[in-house]
């Protein structure tokens, strides 16, 4: 469990985090939502020991961050938003390098390669990978030390819908491996898809923390969200796409939308009734109308 208690952080006169308290349970996917400058990256940087907190305390799996920063770094891993590896090295050379840095076992190495489907690209120079493959390498490096907790800082920025879905699916699977995942994203639908619990922060303060189920059921409506497998034709259909693979509709229109999808051979992955758009809720409570 990660326990953040009354944490404040200042950058000069600017208060980046203001008496923030959070609890992240073990083995869940935890979503951290907030607009740019809300303090998401600052929290991740403090949790990773890159930045020191000014006030308050943090415990990561029982380890006090002020006294066990090194130990905490060995059980955690961050997946930066930028592609933090070496483009001029091959996939294998990158993985070898970061493995040796973290003294990773062969088993962890193989698992990171397998989960991220990198086997066919091991000998390929990283600069020649596609955007999605690069993202997967970026994630694989973070798994090499077999972390207990893994922090994702907007890992799907600039990724095409197909690879985005693959990455999101793999993140959901980390929960099954016993990992705790902290996930930040601008895309509300991604949070809706993969997170068990969500914290919304604004101006360095916690606005709301709840399970995704509660957040959505509290706002029950006649909304229906349909998750589909991505097809180019989706862009040309008269539907309300809230991201590349999610259609928002109402119970009244559901049958016609399903017919439309069927006639265009778009496979359906999931239909969620009574759903609301998390973005709508987020905007309501943070006042970002």
């Amino acid at each position, binding site marked *: 469990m990660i326990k953040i208690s009354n944490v404040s952080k200042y950058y000069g006169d600017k208060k980046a985090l203001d008496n923030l308290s959070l609890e992240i349970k073990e083995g869940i996917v935890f979503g951290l939502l907030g607009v740019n400058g809300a303090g998401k990256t600052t929290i991740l940087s403090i949790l990773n*020991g*890159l930045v020191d907190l000014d006030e308050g305390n943090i415990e990561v799996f029982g380890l006090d961050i002020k006294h066990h920063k*090194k130990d905490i770094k060995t059980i955690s891993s961050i997946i930066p*938003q930028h*592609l933090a590896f070496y483009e*001029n*090295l091959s996939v294998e050379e990158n993985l070898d390098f970061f493995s*040796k840095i973290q*003294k990773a076992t062969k088993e962890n190495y193989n698992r990171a390669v397998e989960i991220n489907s990198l086997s066919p690209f091991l000998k390929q120079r990283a600069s020649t990978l596609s955007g999605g493959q690069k993202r997967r390498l970026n994630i694989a490096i973070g798994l090499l*030390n077999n972390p207990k907790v893994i922090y994702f800082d907007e890992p799907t920025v600039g990724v095409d819908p197909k690879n985005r879905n693959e990455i999101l699916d793999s993140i959901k699977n980390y929960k099954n491996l016993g990992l705790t995942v902290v996930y930040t994203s601008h895309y509300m639908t991604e949070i809706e898809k993969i997170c068990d619990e969500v914290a919304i922060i604004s101006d360095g303060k916690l606005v709301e923390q709840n399970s995704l189920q509660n957040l959505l059921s509290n706002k029950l409506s006649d909304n229906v969200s349909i998750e589909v497998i991505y097809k180019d034709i989706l862009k040309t259909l008269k539907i309300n796409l809230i991201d590349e693979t999610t259609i928002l509709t109402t119970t009244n229109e559901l049958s016609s939308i399903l017919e439309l999808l069927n006639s265009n051979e778009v496979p359906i992955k999931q239909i969620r009734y009574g759903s609301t758009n998390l973005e709508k809720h987020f905007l309501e409570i943070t006042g970002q109308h």
Partner: protein
Amino acid sequence: MFLAMVKKEFLLVLRDKHALIALFIMPAIFILIMSIAMRDQFSTKNIEFTLYIKDADKSEMSRNILQNISKDKNFIILSDKKVAQFVVKIPRKYEKNSKNTIKLTIQDSIKNDQIEVFKSMLSKHVLSARFNSMAKSVKKYSKKASDTLSSLEVSTDKLYKVKYNDSKLIPNSTQQSVPAWIVFGMFFIIIPMSTIYINERKQNTLARLNSMNVSILAMTISKSIPYLIINQLQVWIMIGVGVFLVPFFDTPALEINGSIGAVFAISVALSIAAIGVSTLIAVSASSSEQATTIGGILNILFGAIGGVMVPKFVMPESMQKIAELSPMSWGLDGFLDIFLKSADIFVVMDDTIKLVSFGLLSLILSMIILQLRITKGL
């Protein structure tokens, strides 16, 4: 862990073709070009002048002058006055009338200092002929006076004994060029080093490494070692160019008169200084373009004031004092002491200490800046 970091850095540099060209090909070409171009300026061979002589006097004295000139290896007598550097015309009645003077016509491209040297060398033969003529004239009056006049020595070679101050050997163009362009080339590590460093910083790879418990000190040392080795390779390859390649172009080979230990000491010290400056620029600049520009300008400035482009001994005294501010000048002095003055490790100790101190200070400052940048997410 440390070995993995060193290996990674090596792979990155070796795959950067532009960097390899800047580090190895460029200084080698500079050494070749400058050694050949400056060959004559540093030549210890006889000075040679081409001349055309027109003897209108046809006297014994003028024939004597012609005979003396033809025996002198410094003069090459040509039959075409258009291509000769100097046209020497001995006028009619030159012997009879001592007021008559020899006329010199000189090509426009000849510099004043060359003209003075030519006149001085020619005077030797003219005066000798005059003394001989005078000796013959006075012989009928006094044999002793005649003998005294005949024995007068007008050659400066026998009048002066030349000894070089503080040096056993005379430098040649290769001995000047090799150390200069070694020093300049070594500082060019700034290009690959800053490019890799800034990419790592910008893409948060350094932050990622830091989150993997890699300290700033470990990062700095592991980055320094490959460049230290690359710099050593540069030094010995450039020395090889001076020793083995330059002689193929009819230019004197490099001679290492001092100790190899001293070469090693000064080159390692220079490397630490170059790595220090490169790291400092890499952690301070906000983009690789900015680092390359700042680094390039700084290199040229260090080189210009440090005696790389213009040898320090031709600079005015005030400029020579300014040159002392450049770390390139400290390294160059060390190399020149070794190549020209047979210096050992103790002679170059002062320059070595200055370079190491400068490099370490730069590295410490770089680490402080890098730590601040990582913690502030810059």
